[in-house]
């Protein structure tokens, strides 16, 4: 059969393009449009130029929540990635034990966000929660609703419990894809366990890990429901992350212009970081 050489297949993308235009492009344009206006109600909008952006960029409350967000996402990555690799390495390679581990690991991933928040809200309570009560019984003063550090640790622990399995599952699939011959060669060379990990497993996990880091970064950077249910952003505003600040502004105070300007800055940060990760992934593929 003769192959047709032209670019007409691009027309098949048109329906998707139209859908994306309605679901993403036009809303985005609307947000840009709102960000340069002060809107009081229908027919009462005033053009304010870049005033909102200036205000948002110099607003200390937002800078604080941005800083908290970066610290949180950083901590999430620092804990979950090594822990996920560790769990994947310790999991049985096959058989019924392997399947059992997979099922147990997957359970937290199946629980909806708000339920996770509720579970931990009760679990970590000092009076009726097993975790909070247990810690208090050890003689440690623990109260996640009153103490900033406790609140942070609880939110982090909750996220680690909820999402480390994802990293572990990704790494597990990556590990299973390493051919047995690699291990046999290492055994002949009498390589230590550390050397096997450092020179065989870790390099082979590279692409899986980039995806895991990207997913975990994006998810933790946009986290909203879990801390909102668990701590409500408190005590004070110590666990108020970016999206909660944004929601309060847009829906609570109905400050559309400012919230739009803030969303655009948020979007630009996410876009930049995703692009960096995307470039790293495609670059790593090209090197192979």
């Amino acid at each position, binding site marked *: 059969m003769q192959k047709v050489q032209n670019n007409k297949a691009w027309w098949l993308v048109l329906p998707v393009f139209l859908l994306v235009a309605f679901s993403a492009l036009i809303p985005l344009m609307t947000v840009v449009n*709102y960000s*340069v206006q002060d809107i009081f109600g229908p027919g009462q*909008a005033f*053009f304010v130029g870049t005033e909102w952006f200036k205000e948002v*960029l110099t607003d200390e409350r937002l800078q604080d929540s941005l800083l908290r967000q970066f610290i949180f996402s950083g901590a999430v990555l620092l804990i979950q990635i090594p822990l996920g690799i560790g769990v994947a390495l310790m999991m049985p390679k096959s058989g019924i034990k392997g399947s059992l581990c997979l099922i147990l690991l997957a359970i937290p991933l199946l629980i909806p966000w708000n339920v996770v928040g509720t579970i931990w809200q009760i679990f970590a309570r000092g009076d009726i929660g097993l975790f909070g009560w247990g810690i208090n019984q050890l003689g440690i003063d623990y109260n996640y609703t009153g103490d900033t550090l406790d609140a942070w640790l609880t939110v982090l622990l909750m996220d680690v419990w909820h999402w480390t399995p994802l990293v572990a599952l990704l790494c597990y699939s990556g590990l299973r894809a390493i051919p047995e011959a690699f291990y046999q060669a290492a055994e002949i060379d009498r390589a230590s366990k550390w050397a096997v990990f450092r020179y065989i497993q870790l390099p082979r996990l590279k692409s899986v890990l980039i995806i895991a880091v990207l997913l975990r970064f994006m998810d933790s950077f946009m986290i909203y429901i879990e801390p909102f249910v668990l701590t409500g952003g408190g005590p004070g505003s110590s666990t108020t992350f970016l999206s909660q600040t944004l929601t309060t502004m847009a829906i609570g105070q109905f400050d559309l212009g400012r919230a739009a300007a803030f969303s655009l800055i948020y979007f630009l940060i996410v876009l930049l970081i995703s692009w960096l990760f995307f*470039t790293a992934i495609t670059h790593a593929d090209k090197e192979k």
Partner: protein
Amino acid sequence: MIAWMNWTPTVAIFFAVIAGILAVMTVYEIVSPCTERKGFLPIATTRGDRLFIGLLSAAYIHLTFLAVSDITLWVALAVSVAWLLVLLRWG
């Protein structure tokens, strides 16, 4: 058309310019298809990649000007355009 959803002329011009750039780049690509090459950026890029990097950094340049100074944004725009051209030519 522009009164719908409180569209403002400024935003209309902004998106028209971006759409215009994309259209020009598409035509340019059809007339003379580009190949990936390595310039002063640490990665090999196509023309489209460099445009994207240029536009994204333009956004950050504007935000930086807004955040740290009271200089008019026309200066930020001029810097961005200059940076975009440098990037497209030597990036």
